[in-house]
């Protein structure tokens, strides 16, 4: 397909951009970035995860500019990211270091350290709360001070300094229910630096999945479970919490204690258990567990669960199912790539369409002539 440049429409485009601004402002109210940051946590986490850039305030700005449209906000953040220098790579982050705010297991009732529900909508009634229509900042402050006061008085005194826990997977590995595996320190590939080629590496797959569009990742994982795939998963462990980030000194070799701490990022991590039949000696079959892995920025639980399902699917290629086909999954889940291509269809294609039109007209004329000559022959 050819692309042809066209000129014209400058004044119309300028007026269209003015019109866009007027749509955002016409109700006479201006959204404060701080309000977006404070009240739209879910959307901010989604946008940071899909744009692969962690910064709540910039995500809030992108959401404001995009009038709440996530695909546009992700596009803005990805574009901005491309203007910034990459200064460092972090030290390897081990997810055991996560400072847990929420931790559950669907597989085991009793997990060491217990199940912590944290903040979740899982057990809320999905009824619209009309009292929020007129919620005031004064009421919010009152609620918060009461909440904090109750915590101070009612909690059992504990001296737990760090909410870090051993992994459920480690116990299963110790019991021999999951194959043991040692650390693999091969440097990961980076899809932002080198275009994806097939067959892909595991690091490329995980990077594309973690920055994938939430809806696309979820839909493909759902399809995989419903029958367009071969996965029957159970959540071994789901964690939400803060991961501390450290970097080494760029010029000096030093010990771990000489690293720089630069802050923490909130993430969701999922370890999915998937039972598989394994053939033993003399044709005997056993059941084993394999693990699918999901990790993404922010509290994006559905996405992290879906990522873990697709991770397993892509580790086990199967041409009978599209969800097990790496090209099908990895080429279609990126927000900027998919929405960019689909939305480019509304851009001018005048010349290419004219050429298609000419071809259709010629075909019609030729077939009419053929019809006439056939009628003449029959006479």
């Amino acid at each position, binding site marked *: 397909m050819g692309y042809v440049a066209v000129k014209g429409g400058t004044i119309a485009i300028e007026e269209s951009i003015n019109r866009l601004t007027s749509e955002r402002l016409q109700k006479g109210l201006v959204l404060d970035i701080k309000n977006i940051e404070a009240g739209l946590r879910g959307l901010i986490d989604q946008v940071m995860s899909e744009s692969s*850039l962690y910064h709540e305030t910039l995500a809030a700005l992108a959401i404001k500019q995009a009038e709440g449209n996530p695909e546009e906000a992700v596009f803005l953040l990805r574009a901005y990211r491309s203007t910034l220098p990459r200064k460092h790579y972090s030290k*390897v982050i081990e997810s055991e270091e996560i400072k847990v705010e929420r931790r559950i297991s669907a597989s085991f009732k009793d997990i060491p350290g217990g*199940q912590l529900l944290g903040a979740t909508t899982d057990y809320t009634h999905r009824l619209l709360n009309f009292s929020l229509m007129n919620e005031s900042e004064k009421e919010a402050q009152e609620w918060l001070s009461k909440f904090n006061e109750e915590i101070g008085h009612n909690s059992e005194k504990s001296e*737990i300094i760090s909410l870090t826990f051993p992994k459920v997977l480690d116990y299963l590995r110790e019991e021999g229910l999951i194959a043991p595996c040692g650390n693999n320190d091969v440097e990961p590939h980076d899809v932002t630096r080198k275009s994806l080629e097939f067959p892909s590496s595991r690091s490329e797959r995980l990077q594309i999945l973690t920055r994938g569009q939430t809806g696309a990742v979820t839909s493909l994982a759902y399809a995989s479970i419903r029958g367009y795939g071969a996965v029957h998963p159970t959540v071994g462990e789901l964690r939400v919490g803060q991961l501390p980030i450290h970097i080494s000194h760029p010029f000096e070799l030093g010990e771990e204690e000489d690293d720089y701490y630069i802050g923490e990022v909130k993430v969701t991590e999922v370890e999915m258990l998937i039972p598989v039949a394994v053939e033993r000696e003399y044709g005997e079959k056993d059941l084993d567990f394999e693990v*699918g892995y999901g990790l993404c920025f922010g509290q994006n639980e559905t996405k992290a669960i879906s990522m873990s399902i697709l991770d397993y699917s892509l580790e086990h290629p199967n041409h009978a199912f599209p969800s097990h086909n790496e090209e099908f999954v990895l080429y279609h889940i990126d927000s900027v790539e998919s929405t960019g291509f689909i939305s480019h269809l509304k851009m001018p294609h005048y010349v290419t369409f004219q050429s298609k039109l000419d071809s259709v007209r010629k075909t019609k004329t030729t077939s009419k002539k053929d019809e006439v000559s056939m009628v003449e022959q029959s006479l």
Partner: protein
Amino acid sequence: MKRKRRTEILINSPDELAEELAKEIEQIYLLKVVQEPENGLVMLKVRETAKKSLFYLGEVFVTECKVKIQDSIGIGIVKGDKPKLAYYLAIIDAAYGASLRETRAWTSILEEKEKELLEQKIAHNQEILKTKVSFETMDVS
């Protein structure tokens, strides 16, 4: 005090702590700003737990600054858009690098702050522990 511990205390405390320590150095020593505070990215390298391999999770937005005191170049780097804090952290890092005598007195200040942060962390953890599930097994016989 080693860098990892002190940067964690300084970054998690109110910015005034780093400002106070940095101003102390600023008033006495000649500083040269090698790199003005500027924004950039740090790519996060993580280990997944299914195959224990490494992959890139995404980038975090940071502010970085470099300051020279005597022969020591200090680096201040922090998550987010915090030019002043990055500058103060760079001065403190350079001060430790140059083993300035003022840094000896900082240990007790930082340790005191660390205790406060620990208390806050314990209170925060207590808050989370309130959501711990206490299961009751139902009798189905």
